[in-house]
């Protein structure tokens, strides 16, 4: 029996199973801790693309206070940010800049499309200079509809994103 076990094929299977168990034992609590850290320290880039920035400003004011959810108006560097809230219309001049900002951010990074214009082009869908939604240039995690969305809606959108991060797997 020992001979069977020490057979190279079986041995490899055993080691791989053991390592699976080990990885699971370490990964789940560790992944939970990492996700917990990511959920409560979302730092948005200070990139305003259009008029929804007014409601974004109102959301970070005292009445709505998104800082409760760990989101601060980051005035730091792009390299410290992990969230883009695309605040409204993106036009042909702004689109390359949005992509450039997204590329410069470190992983993991999340995107919230705020407002009807960022989702489909909204009111400006027939304008000659406006993109029909930003999912053509960057991947979007959460869509927050409205024109402009009320601050409560934006807060709900960010809470949805936090749910998504909590459930995500660490690679």
């Amino acid at each position, binding site marked *: 029996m020992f001979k069977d076990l020490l057979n190279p094929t079986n041995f490899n299977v055993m080691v791989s199973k053991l390592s699976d168990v080990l990885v699971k034992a370490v990964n789940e609590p560790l992944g939970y801790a990492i996700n917990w850290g990511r959920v409560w320290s979302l730092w948005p*880039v*200070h*990139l*305003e*693309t*259009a*008029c929804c*920035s*007014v*409601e974004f*400003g*109102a959301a*970070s*004011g*005292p*009445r709505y206070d998104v800082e409760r959810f760990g989101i601060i108006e980051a*005035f730091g560097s*792009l390299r410290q940010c992990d969230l883009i809230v695309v605040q409204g*219309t993106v*036009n042909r*001049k*702004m689109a390359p*800049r949005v992509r450039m*900002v997204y590329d410069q951010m470190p992983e993991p990074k999340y995107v919230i499309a705020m407002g009807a214009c960022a989702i489909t082009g909204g*009111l*400006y869908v*027939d*304008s*000659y*200079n*406006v993109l029909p939604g930003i999912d053509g240039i960057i991947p979007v995690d959460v869509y927050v509809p409205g*024109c*402009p969305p*009320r601050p409560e809606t934006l807060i709900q959108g960010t809470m949805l994103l936090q749910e998504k991060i909590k459930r995500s797997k660490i690679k």
Partner: protein
Amino acid sequence: MAGVHESKVDEAIEMGMQVVKEYTADDDRLMTLSVGPQHPGSGHFRFTIKLDGDYIVYCDPDPGYVHRGEEKMCEYRNFIQNIPHLERPVIHDSANITYSYSLAVEQLVGIEVPRRGQFIRALTSELDRQVYTLYWLAIYGIFLGHSTMFMWPTADRELFIDLLDSLTGARVTHAFNIPGGVRNDVPEGFKEKTLRHIAYYEKRLKEYEDIFYNNPLLRQRTEGVGLLTKEDAIKLGVTGSVLRASGVPFDVRKSEPYDIYNEIDFKVQYMRTGDSFARAYVPFLDMKESCNIMRQLLDKMPESGEVRAKLQPNPKGPAGETYRRVESGRGALGYYIVSDGTPRPYRVKISVGSFRNILALPHLLVGSKLADMPSIYWALNYWPVEADR
């Protein structure tokens, strides 16, 4: 206090002149700096500056990051359909940007707004002036590192937003001022609620003055910075608070009164120094004066009556052109409409205060220090989305 202020301005003029004289065009010494669009201090706007040591010697504004073709879009919608997208450029001052459009269309179609409608319109315009100016003040506060001045105006702004919410049904984008009057009558108890808010708000304005405008740090950062003389202000064509801060008492509400503004008793607020402090202080004086205007409007408003003139389903005027303007939070805001007799405008040109004010930016930045850039830039009462249209 006024004497101290003016002597500092004189000092700065002398200093500014020295700077310009010392500078010699030596390209190797210059550092190019691109500010925006991803920059905490720029908003939806970019400008390139060249630095010689600490001094700015060249400035090139680059607007257009929010250009959405509003004027072209107007041409394939009819006069009523145009309202929702025309208020998007300044969503926190949307009553004023639709006000002048409505005035222009009314002049074209030839209709008279009922008296009560005119009062409600003027009231929404004044409420939105507060909402806009408080947002502007909040951003100016955070630009200069004064976090309290971000929190307080943002909190007090919500009171006015609540009033407008109860009146129009939307926080910022009302689509309430339409050709012919306003959409709805005021809700019950609106007058008492507004008066209560104004009484509270006037107390708060005194606190703003104490903590922000009389703050020695703000005074040092803004007094004598970015001087715009009266002649230059007129030559560059700036408008609104920027023009009034340079000593020109121009206000569209006073010089070309529209609707019921000739029945209202108010003073045009202006200062003579023309520096960043004056440009930051004049909107504050405007907010104070606007409270008086709102009180008078609520007093004189007729108790009952129509709020909206009857319009034909698809209003159209004779072929011709029209231009009307109002005083918005940023200055004169006008619409030039050309009609060819169809229900759709042939051409719409929006003349906005922001774009006129940003023309003064290179003039003011060249010769000043890099550290003065935020206080000069945002004191120009500029909203990039409106300027790009």
